[in-house]
């Protein structure tokens, strides 16, 4: 593959014909997209359309080959992730591409303080840090945890769901990744907390200038947050474009149906729009 050129103008991440198979099942069928430095890309799609597995595939977090086979190429600054050996892969995970997951409550190890868990990330990827505690306090402050000097000694169960998700974000950010992958980071949270977390992410991405890959069901989040949108349906990308364009004039019937579901202020909705799968076809 011609990946030798040091293309500075090229995209940060380039996914080219990615295919993910679990035995007979093809979960993702040849998707291609790019993510530029500093760009925010939203991946929207219904349940089971392959959003999460695509995100996990970016650092090969899926089961090893006999159970799950990956095809195509994922180039991070020109290097193909699918060709990397294990040690290099461990250096990409967290350091270059970091994740936030859906369930903050189960994403933290119950036996260790949140400070210790953020400290683990520092130890893994930033051995140069002299004073880890100061760094832990700094990132906790950055994600809006009040009283971080005290709070970093708390155990996960002593925090609310929203605070746990903030800790997860702090853990992802402390390694200063180039790309932050957020897989439905607000689904498990209360609506008001959802808005706070999204506002926090928007704020952080501007402050830190990293790329964000935001996976969601919710077109409401896309608006004002993402630069571009990918719509996935049954393992394929069915629509792609700038966020505002897709929101204003969706092309694919599935996208239209999803956008019609966004509740709008001052607009009475008679019935919830349902998706007629028989007309969507292939």
């Amino acid at each position, binding site marked *: 593959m011609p990946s030798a050129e040091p293309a500075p103008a090229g995209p940060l991440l380039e996914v080219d014909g990615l295919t993910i198979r679990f035995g007979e099942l093809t979960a993702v069928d040849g998707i291609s997209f790019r993510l530029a430095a500093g760009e925010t890309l939203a991946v929207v799609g219904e349940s089971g359309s392959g959003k999460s597995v695509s995100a996990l595939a970016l*650092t090969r977090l899926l089961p090893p080959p006999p159970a799950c086979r990956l095809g195509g190429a994922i180039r991070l600054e020109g290097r193909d992730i699918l060709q990397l050996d294990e040690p290099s892969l461990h250096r*990409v995970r967290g350091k270059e591409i970091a994740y936030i997951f859906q369930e903050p409550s189960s994403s933290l*190890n119950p036996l260790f303080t949140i400070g210790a868990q953020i400290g*683990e990330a520092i130890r*893994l990827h930033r051995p140069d840090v002299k004073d880890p505690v100061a760094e832990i306090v700094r990132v906790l402050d950055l994600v809006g945890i009040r009283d971080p000097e005290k709070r970093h000694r708390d155990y996960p169960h002593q925090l609310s769901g929203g605070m746990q998700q903030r800790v*997860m974000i702090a853990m*992802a950010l402390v*390694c200063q990744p180039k790309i932050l992958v957020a897989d439905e980071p607000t689904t498990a949270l209360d609506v008001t907390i959802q808005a706070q977390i999204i506002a926090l992410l928007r704020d952080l991405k501007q402050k830190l200038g990293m790329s964000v890959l935001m996976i969601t069901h919710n077109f409401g989040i896309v608006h004002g947050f993402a630069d571009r949108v990918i719509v996935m349906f049954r393992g394929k990308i069915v629509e792609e474009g700038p966020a505002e364009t897709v929101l204003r004039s969706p092309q694919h019937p599935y996208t239209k149906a999803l956008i019609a579901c966004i509740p709008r202020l001052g607009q009475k909705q008679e019935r919830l729009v349902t998706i007629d799968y028989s007309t969507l076809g292939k």
Partner: protein
Amino acid sequence: MVSEITRQQFRRFRSLRRAWYSFWLLVAAYVLSLFSEHLANDRPLLMRYDGATYFPTLKFYPAEAFGGQYRTEADYLALEASPEFKAKGGWMLFPPIKSDPLRSYLRESGSPPHAPSARHWLGTDDSARDVAARLLYGFRSSMTFALTLAVIGAAMGIVAGGIQGYAGGWVDLAGQRLIEIWSALPFLYVVILIGSIYGQTFGVLLFVFLLFEWIGLSYYMRGEFYRLKHQTFTQAAQALGAGPIRILYRHILPNAMVPVITLFPFMLIGGISSLTALDFLGFGLPPPTPSWGEMLQQGLKYLYAPWLAISSVTALFTTLLLASFVGEGARAAFDPRSSNAIR
């Protein structure tokens, strides 16, 4: 590494009075039994003789030193009774039980087994050895055996189960089939066979028991490792770039300790009762060793000397009961299912 949850579990364990007191009783009894030489011995703890002070339970003194003829160890009981000892103003402070577990005290009137008396609180067995002393030493060897067995067996179970649960796939499948075959080996035959080849020493018995001891816990550990491997926080750690070793030691192992804690007292019980059963059948520790199984056996043989059966059965029953209370409490305090209800 002691988290709030763990501390809460310990606090809950302490609040279960029966388990808490049983635990400390057992610990105290075992620690005391480690000093059996100073609790049950026919050598005095402290002796004054001819103006000098001696510590016979700590140090060897030849009979010559006290006017005897030989270089062998002095017979303090005989010495104490000798008129010349008293004449020289000597006195002795004996341990509470004034008998050695291996020595026959035939100077008692009548034939052994002797009934309980002021000299032998729980009587003597058919070789005129003091029952109380033998019970104490037997407790020490049973507990030492069972503790060693449980600790090593638990470690083996964690490793075996952990490998299967963590690796999964064909490793798990092959491991499970091997365990099925292995656990079908008849334990008693293996003990008799290996014991008759290599002799029934403490080490050989421990080895044979260990061949099977790990199996029970390994099933639990396999499940725990499998479950924890698929927990979100393990996957989050993986996504953070943590290698498999780090994930195992930091995220899986510490979270998998509950079955170890709750099963440990029962492994201890199993160890004590199996060793006793084996001793009872005569395939256990070799003869002069003080052992509860051998004492039970005598109890059955000399039903007309009920102190033999009563003392050994009471000792065994009490120990096992205390250990069960500890196990019951550990289960109540550490089992996550019960902790959810309280939290």
